[in-house]
Structures are given as structure tokens and as C-alpha cells.
């Protein structure tokens, strides 16, 4: 079945450094969503991308959807300790959300 591959699995950065996680699919996606899960918490929706080549920003977070709608990325500029958590992409297939493996971000102050 369709899988959504997400890399890297872990990322350790110094506070102030940038961070990027990537999501790839072998098939064209209708849309892609991003979620953040804080340690000990539950996933919280961040954003949905629908259009080819779409770029959306939320403060220090930049989300991109590839031109072919097969890949997406989340970039955080100048990370802060509050950015710690696991970031998941999720794609919809047959009405169900398929989650990527997640990228766990740790930030050293």
C-alpha cells in the first residue's frame, strides 16, 4: 500500500540552528498534513497543503508541497527549545490518514 517515507528519524540541533524534515511518497498525493507531538502528548495539527508547489508559513515554520505533489518539507528557522517534539507528515489514502514515521527533534539550549 501507499507509504509515506519521512526522514530523518532523529535530529539533534543546537538552539538557534535550523531544522528540516522531509516527506516522500511514490504516488501523487491529493494533500498532505503536518502534525506536532510534544513529548508525552498527542499529535496536534499544524497545517494542510493542497496545491502543487504550495508554500505556507507559520512564524518560524515553512511548509512546502512539491510541484509533483509527491513530497513535502517542514523547515524551522532558528529553533527554540519549545520546538522539541516529533513532527509527522500525513497523507490521505482512501479517506484514511497514513502517517509518516516522524522526525524527533531535540534542541540543546
Amino acid at each position: 500500500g501507499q507509504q509515506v517515507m519521512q526522514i530523518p528519524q532523529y535530529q539533534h540541533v543546537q538552539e538557534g540552528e535550523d531544522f528540516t524534515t522531509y516527506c516522500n511518497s511514490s504516488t501523487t498525493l491529493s494533500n498532505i498534513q503536518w502534525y506536532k507531538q510534544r513529548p508525552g502528548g498527542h499529535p496536534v495539527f499544524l497545517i494542510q497543503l493542497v496545491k502543487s508547489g504550495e508554500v505556507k508559513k507559520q512564524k518560524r515554520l515553512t511548509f512546502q508541497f512539491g510541484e509533483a505533489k509527491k513530497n513535502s518539507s517542514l523547515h524551522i528557522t532558528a529553533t527554540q527549545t519549545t520546538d522539541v517534539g516529533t513532527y509527522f507528515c500525513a497523507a490521505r489514502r482512501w479517506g484514511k490518514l497514513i502517517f509518516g514515521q516522524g522526525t524527533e527533534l531535540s534542541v540543546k539550549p
Partner: protein
Amino acid sequence: SAVISQKPSRDICQRGTSLTIQCQVDSQVTMMFWYRQQPGQSLTLIATANQGSEATYESGFVIDKFPISRPNLTFSTLTVSNMSPEDSSIYLCSVEGTEKNTEAFFGQGTRLTVV
């Protein structure tokens, strides 16, 4: 948005016993979803709970092991039956917005440890 109350938040259970997890939503929703998240892993869909019909299970999950109830449009339960240590995981209920292809809202999760 939707507010989801899930309980218990955590439990430690003996192997061979069963645990029922409850999920209450503050609005009526057609479908509710149950996920499992094993330690350090992603979310895996267990089943979709539809009001008025049997739940639809994903590959690898069966009704005998994870019976689900959906008595009305705001409530669902998931039972983890005859538990073994391999069932230790976080179980999450979820609903989605009323529009098609909108975001998912999650309960706080139930952290289950089977000893």
C-alpha cells in the same frame, strides 16, 4: 475544532486481562478512529468506528482482539483483549472535521503497560 476526552490516561495491566478505553467527543461526528502508537513509533490505524454499524478494521487488527463499540455519535470504546506485553503502547482516538479532507483531532491518549 473538536474536544476529545479520552480515559484512562494510563494504566498498568496484568497479561491476560482486558482494558476498555473510552473516548467522548464534544460534538456529533460520523466516524471515529482508533490508532496505536508503539514506543517511539508512528501512528497506526487500528479501525474506523461508525455509528450504527460494525467497525472497519485495518490489516493486522481483528475484532476479537480489539472490539469496538459506537453506541452514538459522540462516544466510542476500544477494548484491548487478552493483553500481552506486546500490547504495551499508546492508544489514541481521533475524529476529523466536518468538511472532507480536514485535519484530525486526537484525544490525549491512553498509555498502556502490560506486565
